[in-house]
């Protein structure tokens, strides 16, 4: 069973599309939504579903394979590798920080006070699901479009 991957391609992010795909698949692995052995969509399926050029998907998959995140099994498709490297704490924080930096710049330009910025972030986290945005829930990361 191929899980339905919700990848979000942001044309406005300035991040190459293959990179956005790679980052999000890695985040799914890091968050254990995708586990070792899980099948991921074929190049054809993903290209059609996201309306992106198939060569872009090929590039993302090739890079992910090179990094040991996925493996291709002949005639069967692509799977999350048994020893898919988890994101380190530093990588998680790095990914988050890139987006946060952009947010900080824009908030400064707009003269939005810091408490308001924090409120907005909290609201966006809540919007992603009931488990998010509560005080007790440690916020690990919730990056949709990825960075780099």
């Amino acid at each position, binding site marked *: 069973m191929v899980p339905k991957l919700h990848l979000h*391609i942001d*044309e*406005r*992010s*300035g*991040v*190459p*599309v*293959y*990179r956005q795909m790679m980052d999000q698949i890695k985040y799914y692995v890091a968050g254990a939504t995708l586990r070792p052995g899980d099948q991921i969509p074929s190049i*054809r399926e993903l*290209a*059609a579903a*996201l*309306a*992106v*050029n*198939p*060569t*872009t998907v090929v*590039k993302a998959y090739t890079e992910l394979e090179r990094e040991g995140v996925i493996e291709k099994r002949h005639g069967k498709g692509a799977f999350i590798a048994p020893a898919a490297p988890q994101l380190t704490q530093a990588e998680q924080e790095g990914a988050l920080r890139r987006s946060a930096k*952009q947010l900080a*710049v824009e908030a400064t*330009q707009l003269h939005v006070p810091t408490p308001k910025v924090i409120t907005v972030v909290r609201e966006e986290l809540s919007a992603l699901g009931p488990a998010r945005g509560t005080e007790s829930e440690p916020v690990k990361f919730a990056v949709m479009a990825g960075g780099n």
Partner: protein
Amino acid sequence: MEPVIHARGLGKSFRNGTVAVNGLHLQVGTGEVYGLIGRNGAGKTTALRLLMGLLHPDRGEARVLGRSLWDAPREHRQRIAYLSQSQQLPDWMSLEDLNRYTGHFYERWDSAHLRSLARGWDLPWNSPITRLSGGNQRLAALALALAARPEVILLDEPAAGLDPIARRELNQCLIDALLHGNGCTILLSTHLLGDLERLATRVGIMDHGHVVAEGAVEDWQRTMRRVQVVFAGDSSPPDFAIPGALRSTSLGPVVTALARVTDDAQLDGIRHLPGARVYVFPLTLEELFVDWFRDAQPQSSTDDATPD
């Protein structure tokens, strides 16, 4: 080996004196999706018509799949599909008629594909084309072009006049064409730059009849940035320039540039200037395009002329 689409030193003027295409070089390799962008009147339509052999060049060469289409036999021409801006189908015919009639001329005609596209787009199979809305007539023309299972597809603003859903379907059927069999090579002109970010492998900016900038979409997304530096005083320091700037404007203490930032450290020098605050923003293709042309010199009168 020569690329699938090859133009070299291509030039074309019209009797009214308009120089529509002027020294165009263009190389598109197998399996590429190349987006041609540019202002109205930049020469995109004429370039495509020259490549299709619908116009004869004044100079230079235009070849598709290894030969000029101006005098190519039918077997060669039918490997290439072309959708013009003003596609005229015989509009008293229905898709069914066209399927039967047109199919005879093509070796690789795929009736099943045409039916499936028509079904997917809710195009009536038995009504005359003239009864279809403008957008649906365009989709019908595109479906017929794709039913020939071409190896090369040239599209002149294919999404013009389509609603967002139809546009997405158009993109998806182009991706389908890329995935089918041995794939295909696509050259399209468009003003819808968001679509190109997903679809295109390379983009060329056309101006005054030739390509003035060209790059891999991925590379542009990674490196093209809008960099803004705000100084503390009333003006920016004399001789100040943002490293990597391609276009630059300055207003009092604010300097803004379209810059190629290959490495963030490239900006470290200006980050450490006293009183300078540096902001770096990613750019969409659309913003890049606008920035590119915003500060261009006033353009000559030939620019407003429509090539055909």
